[in-house]
């Protein structure tokens, strides 16, 4: 019997996904686990693997189509099979998933646990996940990732078969897909060079970044303080580490790692900046740990992976963790929970010679530190020293200028006397 492949729901808030590329075309033979098509949500990209073998009999949506979750995308079956009953009617394909079960969309994935149309989100208005006791127990036993379950029970309840569907797909908590969080973007992100002009449809990730940045700037009271410090000590330190790295088994500790380290040791004294400003709740959430977001430029756009508990790490540990998350972000293999949860973010455009900029805060954080390029300045005695610029954007709703300036000054002092900081 022919199987309908539906657009999976990647997480509870996802309503539709864009097909980015068909890897098979109608008439192609398909083996189990072959990639059928790639698609992306507003946060991530995925490949849809076939769960059956057969022939791709029909495709209902083309590349670039934005397809409602759970609607049929294609049909795999035996050559010559009659699939007329499985072809969605026009309205069905276009309409959003209906609320009432009686208007269910015909979607069959795998008898006897068909992935019936969802009847709504499993999350109620009170924020509780609606899940049957049986399904919950099964999920707990099997570590299935409830957040990706498509509720097919009455009243939008996750029931046993929904967990079984997760397990069939291998969707456990230990195996979350890459999820891309909208991140702080430098305001100076390069504009594309124009030759005449070409209209390019914005990729989802771009749309999300756009929305998020605009929201950040329009909803917050952001302003940026600039300062600089004498980088002699950290540059010397870095050179020293570099010379001895192999011998001592140390990482290639970068200037950025050093700045991260200094931030992690300084910011706990300035709790307003290591915090979330929860506007809707009138609450400031102060973090007792430093979860550092690191803005990373990737092929798809900006990602901000997080180093959790940075204040507890040695410089060397922090360096390797930062490298690891940056690499994962760039390769697209980062776990989604590492793309959120930061309490403060550091972004670095210094390598590109930027001397000063206004970083944009990733809400609900209250601040972001931009690391600028090193320039040489003249001391009163006429000698020069390497000065590294720091640009701190903060949310004036959460804190005032003086405490923000105090933090920046403390940070500069710590970096200027980095050896002393290390000794602490």
């Amino acid at each position, binding site marked *: 019997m022919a199987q309908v492949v539906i657009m999976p729901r990647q997480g509870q808030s996802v309503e539709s996904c864009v097909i980015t590329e068909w890897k098979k075309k109608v008439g192609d033979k398909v083996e189990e686990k072959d990639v059928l098509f790639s698609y992306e949500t507003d946060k991530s990209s995925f490949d849809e693997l076939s769960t059956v073998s057969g022939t791709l009999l029909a495709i209902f949506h083309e590349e670039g189509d934005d397809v409602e979750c759970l609607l049929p995308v294609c049909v795999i079956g035996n050559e010559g099979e009659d699939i007329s009953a499985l072809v969605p009617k026009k309205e069905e394909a276009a309409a959003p998933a209906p609320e009432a*079960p*009686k208007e*269910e969309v*015909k*979607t*069959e994935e795998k*008898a*006897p646990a*068909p992935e*019936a*149309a969802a*009847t709504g989100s499993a999350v109620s208005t009170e924020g509780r996940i609606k899940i*049957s*006791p*049986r*399904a919950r*127990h099964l999920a707990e036993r099997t570590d299935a990732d409830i957040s990706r379950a498509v509720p*097919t*029970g*009455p*009243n939008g*309840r996750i*029931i*046993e*078969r929904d967990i079984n569907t997760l397990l069939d797909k291998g969707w456990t908590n230990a195996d979350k897909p890459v999820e891309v969080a909208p991140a702080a973007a430098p305001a100076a992100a390069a504009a594309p060079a124009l030759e005449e002009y070409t209209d390019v449809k914005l990729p989802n990730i771009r749309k999300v970044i756009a929305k998020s940045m605009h929201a950040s700037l329009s909803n917050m009271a952001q302003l940026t303080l600039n300062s600089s410090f004498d980088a002699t000590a950290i540059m010397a330190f870095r050179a020293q580490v570099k010379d001895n790295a192999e011998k001592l088994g140390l990482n290639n500790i970068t200037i950025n790692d050093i700045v991260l380290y200094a931030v992690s040791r300084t910011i706990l004294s300035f709790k307003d900046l290591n915090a979330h400003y929860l506007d809707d709740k009138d609450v400031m959430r102060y973090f007792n740990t430093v979860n550092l977001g690191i803005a990373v430029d990737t092929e798809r756009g900006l990602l901000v992976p997080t180093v959790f508990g940075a204040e507890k790490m040695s410089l060397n540990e922090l360096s390797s963790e930062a490298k690891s998350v940056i690499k994962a972000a760039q390769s697209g293999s980062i776990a989604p929970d590492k793309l959120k949860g930061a309490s403060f973010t550091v972004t670095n455009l210094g390598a590109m010679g930027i001397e000063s900029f206004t970083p944009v805060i990733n809400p609900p954080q209250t601040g972001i530190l931009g690391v600028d390029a090193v320039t040489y300045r003249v001391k009163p005695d006429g000698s020069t020293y390497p000065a590294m610029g720091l640009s701190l954007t903060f949310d004036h709703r959460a804190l005032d200028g003086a405490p923000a300036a105090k933090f920046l000054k403390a940070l500069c002092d710590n970096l200027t006397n980095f050896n002393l900081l290390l000794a602490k």
Partner: protein
Amino acid sequence: MPKSQYVDPSKAFDSGYIHFEDIPVCQYNKTLTEEKKIYTKADFLRIYRDMAIIREFETMLNEVKVKSEYNGVKYNNPGPAHLSIGQEASAVGEAYCLDINDFSFGSHRSHGEILAKGLSSIEKLNDEELYAIMKEFLDGTVLNVVEKHMNAGGNVKELAINFLLYGALAEIFARKTGFNRGLGGSMHAFFIPFGLMPNNAIVGASAPIALGAALYKRSNGKPGIVISNCGDGATGRGPVLESLNFASMDQITKLWGMDGKYSDGGMPILFNVFNNHYGMGGQTRGETMGFDMVARLGAGFNPSQMHAERVNGYDPLAVIDAVSRKKKLLLEGKGPALLDVVTYRVSGHSPSDSSTYRTQEEIEAWKNADPIVAFKNKLIKGKLATENDFAVMHEQITARMTEIMKLAINDEISPRMDLNKEPDAIASIMFSNQKVVSMEPERKPEMLMPKEECPRVKEIKGKVRTATDKDGKPVSKMKMYNVCDGLFEPIIDKFYDDPTLIAYGEDNRDWGGAFGVYKKMTEAVPYHRFFNSPISESAIVGSAVGYAMCGGRAIVELMYADFIGCAGDEIFNQMAKWQAMSAGILKMPIVLRVSVGSKYGAQHSQDWTAITSHIPGLKVVFPVTPTDAKGLMTSALDGTDPVVFFESQRVYGFGEEFVKEGVPEGKFSIEFGEPDIKRAGKDVTILTIGATLYRAMNAAKTLEEKYGISAEIIDARSLVPFNYDKVIESVKKTGKIVIVGDACERASMMKDMAANITEFCFDYLDAPPVALGSRNWITPAFELEKSFFPFEDAIIDCIHEKLIPLNGHVPTHNFSDIEKVERAKKGL
């Protein structure tokens, strides 16, 4: 409707008159001199003593009620005390004529009746018999108290009087040492070894029960007569009138003899009305009734006018005279009889009675006519005793009563049941749970032919015991062993096994039961064991209760389950409760067959399993396959508990579809309480009650074929008791369950089971258990019933909407929560 009695149109319209005989009204006029030829001095004095004991006993209860003190002993009795002060001569006069083979059933004002019958029995039994009875009763519990704490001077009869008074009083005060362990109480004290049968707190309820006792004596050739006592107020009650008629029905004398083969005697029962002029406060003569005198009723029931008579109940000798004449008639097979014993209740209906309905003048006048004082004066005048003799007697009685009361209120000697220490004390007597093949194994059952020759038995022998033949083709209706046969087999077997088994109901005999279960049984079972009853549901069920109380086994039928309402008290208060109210002394082997109809509208199609299951003390089963019908009927008939046996008119003609080997031959029983998995499955459980099994099977087929859902179907078979193990196991597997039955959904057994399963299986549930019953409407006409009863489509919709949405299914029923809340709001 026996064919032997021709209904002749040429005679039906003959003209003429109905003639009545004169009904004697207080015709007794013997002098003491005449009576001295009958009674010895000791007899006279004993009659007086018995009246005086009763008076003192009730005076004590009254004092305790109104003053919380008797003779200086303080006590508070919160329970009822319906006294009969003034009625002692009636009670003693009646009991004087009775021995322990004569069973007396009391009214709800029965202390006097109990004591009178007890004292009379003590007098008639010899010392050995008497002592043995007391020793054996409740393992000597009552005897031990009076033997240890009271001095009877080595006189067994005196000891027995202490025993009687103490056992009754301890019962009234709800003590564990009472005659029924304190579970019966004031209005239900009784002592069977003295022929002193249960009394009843429901006015008039003793009449059908006493009728059943008479039926037991009549059908089993047992000695003695039965007295059905009630007050004049009770004659307004249907069950009393039904019983007067049932006892008088023609067939007993005209058909039961079967041409000299068996007795053609009438029903040995005396309906004795203690006519105290009031039903609570309603004055029967002049206000609430129209008979003028109760005795007139006799003329309405049979040509012998029930030998009705009105007697002076204030004269014990007049009562003795009348009762002994009636007893003689009854023993001669001329029953039933009716006595209107005129008396007066000087005490109130209960201590809360302020006598607003009568004048002080009236009460005073009756006090002045006090039967005890009058009898004393008569004896003094007749020189049978002196004033001093009576004074001494009274002193002794008061001393004895005080002593008895002190014992009965002593918490150490007469403790109450301790339900903290023995939490199962009452639970353990709700059912007797015995298996007794024959209630009287030593006697040979009276039958008209050997079992093998019984035409129906022969017919069944030739039937195919499965619904389909070897090739899977349906067996023809005529040849197929069906549910009716499954019911018939154990019943006919029991007729040959248990000589006490008796079956009756409306249209049971020649018609074969309205639905053919008893077809061709008439040929094999004599009338006195199997007959058509009048259309008197109260009398049908109530008499079965009396029949069972006496040691017989009865299977009675109400045709439609809807008629349960007509026998409400008998089913809910009598049949259900007597085992426990007697502290397990009584057994109640009754099978009450009721049939759930279809096609017959609002008053002939109801499944009332919920109503009967709600009442503690009843077992309730509902088989719908031939095998289950046979197995459960066998268990019901072997048991000693009252069973409401539901049947379905939808499936009487169904063959065996589930047991491959067919309905088992020979004796075959199924334990009560065990549900049966009729279809194995893994995705969803459907628990069915009654005939919905077949609709669920169809639904399961559709679920499997169309939606790839595998349904497990469990047939509840029993409702009380019910073993949830199999259901729990199934729900652990499937996580989903719908419970289906034909009863209206609100407060149904489906709801009850759903609630229980939610508790038992919560952690395994994938959806809340759902009850699916009929709508909370009247049952509409057959053509509309698909909108009312749960059919296949509703079962599937229910599963789709409440348990697991089915791919592509378009439901036609609305089972949404919003809809259900709305319906509840409207009472629908």
